[in-house]
């Protein structure tokens, strides 16, 4: 991960993921402003739609990638001691993996796939 998410590749990954996330944010705000789900069934059916569920899961992965590059930049700038920085980076990494698996479970359960 440190090799794939450093230097120029991290820089370009951060910008591509940012563009995707910007579009997702606009689409999500549009959905909740224009046709917010009135009932649980509407909400569940929306999330369970294969296209919506897939877009959400792709976006979760993109968010976590974007967050990883971002938190790595912040920790490199503000936490000079190497051992402490690597410890914090590992904790965030574990947290991100946990968040990803949790989100995966939520979407699969809503879709009736798990």
């Amino acid at each position, binding site marked *: 991960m440190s090799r794939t998410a450093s230097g120029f590749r991290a820089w370009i990954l951060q*910008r591509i993921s*940012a*563009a995707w996330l*910007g579009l997702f*944010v606009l689409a999500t*705000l549009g959905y*909740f*402003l224009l046709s*917010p789900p009135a*009932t*649980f*069934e509407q*909400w*569940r059916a929306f*999330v369970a739609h294969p296209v919506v569920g897939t877009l959400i899961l792709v976006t979760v992965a993109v*968010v976590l990638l974007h*967050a990883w590059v*971002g*938190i790595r930049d*912040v920790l490199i700038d503000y936490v000079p001691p190497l051992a402490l920085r690597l410890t914090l980076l590992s904790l*965030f990494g574990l*947290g991100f993996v946990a*968040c990803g698996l*949790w*989100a995966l479970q*939520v979407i699969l*359960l*809503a879709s009736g796939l798990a």
Partner: protein
Amino acid sequence: MAANEKRPVHLNLLQIRFPVPAVMSIGHRISGVLWILLLPAMIFLVDLSLSGPQGFARAGELLGSVMGRLAAFLLLWALMHHLLAGIRYLALDLDLGIEKQAALATAWWVMLAAPLLAAGLTAGLLP
């Protein structure tokens, strides 16, 4: 050389000037870290809302409470600030708005538009 001798030997945060683009830049970092730290809360809320009709109603109650609205405003401010500042950075990467005057103006726009958009979105999303 005389000016060089007066350089600060320690960084006094009260004496360092923070121009608007610097404040906006720190805001970009703070808003990003804030979203990272509240990511579990976001997933929890979606999980709750999808757990059943009762969970859906409970999630609505949580968001509609005073604390929920304040949290929503804070997160929407962070989202709008991060988004607008991010668009500004992408533009700077393309050499757009790179001149000092323009860069200062767009930093002000980000600082002012983010809380206004957040207020409007909070009102629109949580009527």
